[in-house]
C-alpha cells in the first residue's frame, strides 16, 4: 500500500505539490489526472526521490521512502517511467534494457533473462533493433524502450508518467491493458498519470484529480468518469 500524507514539494517560489494526501491500493491501478502543470509529474518524481519534498511523508507498506535516495527507492521495488522518452540514446537498445535490471543482477540472473524476453515479446520492434543505439529509435519506440526498462526491474510499484505520450492509439491501449494484466497476475501496484483521462480511468481502481498541486477529488475511478461536472471544471471537457 502506498501512503502519501501531507506532501509538499516546492520549486524556487512555487508550491508544485501543496499538501497532498492519498493512498494507492496494492495490486491496483490508481490513475492521477489533472491539467497541465497540476503537479502530476512532480508527484511521481517526489515519490521516486527525484525531487525532495519540503514536508510530508511517503510510505510504501511499512517502508518510509521520504528521505531515501532515488537508487534506494528503486531498489526497494519502485520503478518510474518518467515523462518524455527517457532512454540513453548513446547506449544500444539491449543495453538500455539491461540497465533496468542491473541492480537485480546478483540475485535474479535467471529471472532477468525471462523478463528481458518478455519485454521483447511485448515490443518485437525493440528486439529487431536491439543492437542499434537507442537514439535512432522513433519517438514511440523510445517510449516503448523506457517502459521496458522499468518492467525488467520487476517493480512492485510502477510509476507511469504519461506512457501513451507519442504512442499510436493501438499501442497505448495495448500498454494499458498489459499493465492491467500485470496488476492482476503479479499484484503490481501502479500509479498512472495520464493527460487523456478516459482510457486511463477505464482500467483504474481509483482516480485522483489534481489541480494546482492539490487533490480536488479522490474517488473510485467509475465515479470520476461519471462526474462530468468535475471534469469540466478541472480538465475542460
Amino acid at each position, binding site marked *: 500500500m502506498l501512503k502519501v500524507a501531507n506532501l509538499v514539494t516546492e520549486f524556487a517560489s512555487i508550491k508544485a505539490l501543496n499538501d497532498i494526501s492519498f493512498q494507492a491500493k496494492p495490486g491496483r491501478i490508481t490513475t492521477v489526472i489533472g491539467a497541465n502543470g497540476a503537479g502530476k509529474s512532480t508527484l511521481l518524481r517526489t515519490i521516486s526521490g527525484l525531487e525532495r519534498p519540503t514536508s510530508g511523508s511517503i510510505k510504501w507498506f511499512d517502508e518510509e521512502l521520504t528521505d531515501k535516495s532515488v537508487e534506494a527507492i528503486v531498489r526497494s521495488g519502485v520503478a518510474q517511467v518518467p515523462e518524455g522518452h527517457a532512454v540513453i540514446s*548513446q547506449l544500444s537498445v539491449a543495453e538500455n534494457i539491461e540497465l533496468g535490471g542491473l541492480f537485480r543482477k546478483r540475485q535474479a540472473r535467471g529471472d532477468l533473462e525471462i523478463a528481458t524476453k518478455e519485454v521483447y515479446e511485448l515490443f518485437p520492434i525493440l528486439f529487431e533493433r536491439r543492437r542499434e543505439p537507442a537514439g535512432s529509435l522513433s519517438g514511440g519506440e523510445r517510449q516503448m524502450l523506457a517502459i521496458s526498462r522499468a518492467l525488467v526491474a520487476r517493480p512492485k510499484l510502477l510509476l507511469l508518467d504519461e506512457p501513451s505520450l507519442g504512442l499510436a492509439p493501438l499501442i497505448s491501449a495495448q500498454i494499458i491493458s498489459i499493465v492491467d494484466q500485470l496488476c492482476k497476475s503479479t499484484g503490481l501496484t501502479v500509479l498512472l498519470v495520464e493527460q487523456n483521462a478516459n482510457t486511463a480511468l477505464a482500467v483504474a481502481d481509483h482516480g485522483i484529480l489534481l489541480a494546482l498541486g492539490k487533490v480536488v477529488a479522490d474517488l473510485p475511478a467509475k465515479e470520476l468518469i461519471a462526474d462530468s461536472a468535475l471534469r469540466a471544471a478541472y480538465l475542460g471537457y
Partner: protein
Amino acid sequence: MNSFLTAFFAGTSQGAIYALVSLGLVLVWRGAGVVNFAQMGQAMFTTYIASQLIQNEYSYWSAFVIALISGALLGALVDLGIMRPLSSRKNSQLLNSQSMRTTVPVIASLGILGVLKALAGIFWAGEERGFPAPVPTTGLRLGNSDLAITGFDLFVIGVVFLALVLTTIFFTRTGMGLAMRASALNPEVTRLSGIRVGSVRTLSWAISGTASSLAGLLVTPKTNLSPNTLDLLLIIGFTAAVVGGLTSLAGSVLGGFILGYVIAFVNVYSAPENVFLAILIFLLLALFLRPQGILGSKEVRRV
C-alpha cells in the same frame, strides 16, 4: 640501422606512452563524461609521491603500489570535491545547454591542474628529477645487432595492451562497466534504474585516477618529473584520443601509436621544428575526414 627503422622504433616506444595517456583520457570520458585536462597533473602528483618514497628508501614496488592507491584516492577526491558539486542539482539548472555542460568540467579540470602544479611546486620545489623504471632501460639485442627498443619499451607496450583489453572487457562486458557508461551519459535515467550514480562515478574517477597514476609511473622514466614536464604529453595524448575517437578505447590506443609515428617520422624525415605544426595539420585532417575520430562512433541524436 637506417632512418626508417630509427623512426619506427622511436615511434613505437613513444607511441606506447602516448597511448597510455590517451587511454586514461578516454577512460574518464566514458566513465564520467569529462575530458580531464588535470589527468597528467594527477599523474605528476602521485609520481612525486612515489619519488619521495623511493628517496626515503622505500622499495620501488611498494612506492609503485602506494602511488597507484594515491592515484585512486586523488581521483575520488577530484570527483567528490569538485565534479560532483559541479553537476549538482542547482548547477545543472544553471548549465542548461549541452555546450556548457561539456565546457564547464573542462574548465574545472584546468583549475585542478593549476592547483596540483602549484602544490607540487610547494612540496617538491619544482626541480626536474628523474624517475626509475621497473625494468631495464637498456636496449635489447637480437643476435648481434642492437635493437632500438628497450625492455622497458616492451613493458610499456605490454601494459598498454593489457590495460586496453581489461578496460574494454570491463566497459562492454560487465554490469559495472555498463553502469559507468550510463552514469556518464544520463545520470537521471541511470539513477532511476537503481544504480548509485554518485558512487559509480566516484569509482570511475578512482579507476581513471589509478590509470593516470600508472601512466605517470611509466612515462616519467623517459620524460623526467617536474610540475610541468607532463603538460606537453597531455596535449599529445589528447590529440591521440581525439584522432582515435574519444568514445573508443581501442581508438585511443591506435591514436597514441599513430601520433608516435607521425612525430617520429616528421622528426626523422622533416625537422623537429615541424612537429607541432604536423600534429595540428594531422589533427585537422583526421577530424575533417572523420569528425568522430577513427574508431569513434557518431552520436545519433534525433529530433
